[in-house]
């Protein structure tokens, strides 16, 4: 049976992971490759690297990072952050990325999704959608690292990106992100039912129960989190054992 995936997310800047990461027995917590290996050993199903480098050197450091990770890691990984063109995606894939995640560029020019899917196949094109809830407008899509409201309805945008050929949606609730109060179950469920591509739920994970909820109540295909894994608040093995005991299919 196809399993639900657990995906740690690493924020990367200038080739190093940022946000504190505290692993026992890992001397250099800033090294993305060492972290990636650690997570793979613990049973992570995939990894996401979010590159937040804003300099001109970005391309070079990212290529080097991708090559180093791909040389080491025997599980799939996605790279996102500032990817804006067919050439950007090609550069990542040639160096060993499994999937490329686009966000603002897709909102700026939605046809980019069609072009990428045609060129590289849907399976390696992820569209990241950042959504925020307001009582007046419901769930709307934000861009430019969450600073700009596009006015687009989140579920409709997810339907559009799936129709244009992306192979997966990385759905982040900005309203839940960092709260540790749980994933946005209503949004995730609505998107899961609206599209036929896999949905990765992100934002708000604070406990094992939150993962159970997002898989059982919102039909997410994968759950992504950062700090709770980085700080060892939830161990990946412990999480997956508990999910399995709840009857949720996971790879152990």
């Amino acid at each position, binding site marked *: 049976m*196809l*399993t639900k995936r657990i995906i740690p997310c690493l924020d990367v800047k200038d080739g190093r992971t940022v946000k504190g990461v505290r692993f026992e027995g890992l001397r250099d917590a800033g090294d993305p490759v060492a972290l990636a290996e650690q997570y793979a050993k613990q049973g992570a199903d995939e990894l996401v690297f979010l590159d937040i480098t804003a300099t001109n050197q970005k391309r070079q450091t990212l290529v080097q990072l991708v090559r180093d990770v*791909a*040389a080491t890691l*025997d599980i799939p990984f996605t790279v996102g952050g500032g990817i804006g063109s067919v050439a950007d995606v090609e550069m990542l894939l040639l160096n060993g990325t499994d999937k490329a995640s686009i966000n603002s560029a897709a909102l700026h020019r939605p046809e980019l999704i069609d072009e990428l899917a045609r060129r590289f196949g*849907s399976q390696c094109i992820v569209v990241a959608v950042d959504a925020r809830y307001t009582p007046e407008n419901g769930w709307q899509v934000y861009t430019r690292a969450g600073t700009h409201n596009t006015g687009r309805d989140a579920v409709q945008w997810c339907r559009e990106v799936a129709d244009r050929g992306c*192979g997966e949606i990385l759905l982040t609730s900005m309203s839940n992100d960092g709260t540790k109060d749980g994933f946005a179950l209503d949004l995730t469920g609505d998107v899961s039912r609206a599209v036929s*591509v*896999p949905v990765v739920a992100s934002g708000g994970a604070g406990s094992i129960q939150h993962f159970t909820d997002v898989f059982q109540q919102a039909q997410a295909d994968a759950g992504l989190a950062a700090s709770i894994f980085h700080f060892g608040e939830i161990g990946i093995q412990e999480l997956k054992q508990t999910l399995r005991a709840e009857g949720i299919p996971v*790879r152990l």
Partner: protein
Amino acid sequence: MNIAVIDYKGGNVQSVLFALERLGVHATLTADPEQIRSADKILFPGEGEASTAMQELRSKGLDQVLPTCRQPFLGICLGMQLLGTHSEENNADMLGILPFEVKRFVADAQHKVPHMGWNNLHRLRSPLFEGVREQDYVYFVHSYHAPVGSYTIAEGEYPTPFSAAVQHENFYAVQFHTEKSGPVGTRILENFLKL
């Protein structure tokens, strides 16, 4: 050992090269018929779209070369599908080394397409899977699949059975990504290198 990895712009070949390096094996990425013919083993990875891949193979004459190869040959993902006769994906005619026709998965509420993630292997029946257990997990990413037939050497289920791996003479192929399937995938690659 002289290993050729077929270069036809078929997606993420770098991961396969890295996986071989982790096993201490150096491989050559090549589209040169002579290099391919003289290799001890051939790997044929691939992602992407079937008709584009076939065009690229034809433009390099590889559609003629590959079927004549007699050394152990391993197709991966699209590299497996291309060994069949025909694909529903843009109505592509393919290499015809194995007699299967590739069909699209049908999405329903419980089964999204692409079939993406870790799924079990069933009914293993090949030296390729020595040391691999029934129900072991490997990583799949695909929207199209080959049905089960006499050529099937491992099955997957999504939700109906499909070929997770196939074989005909020296031609072995797997639908999942050996290079991204953790220790299980590594073992399968090792087994192939021993064939």
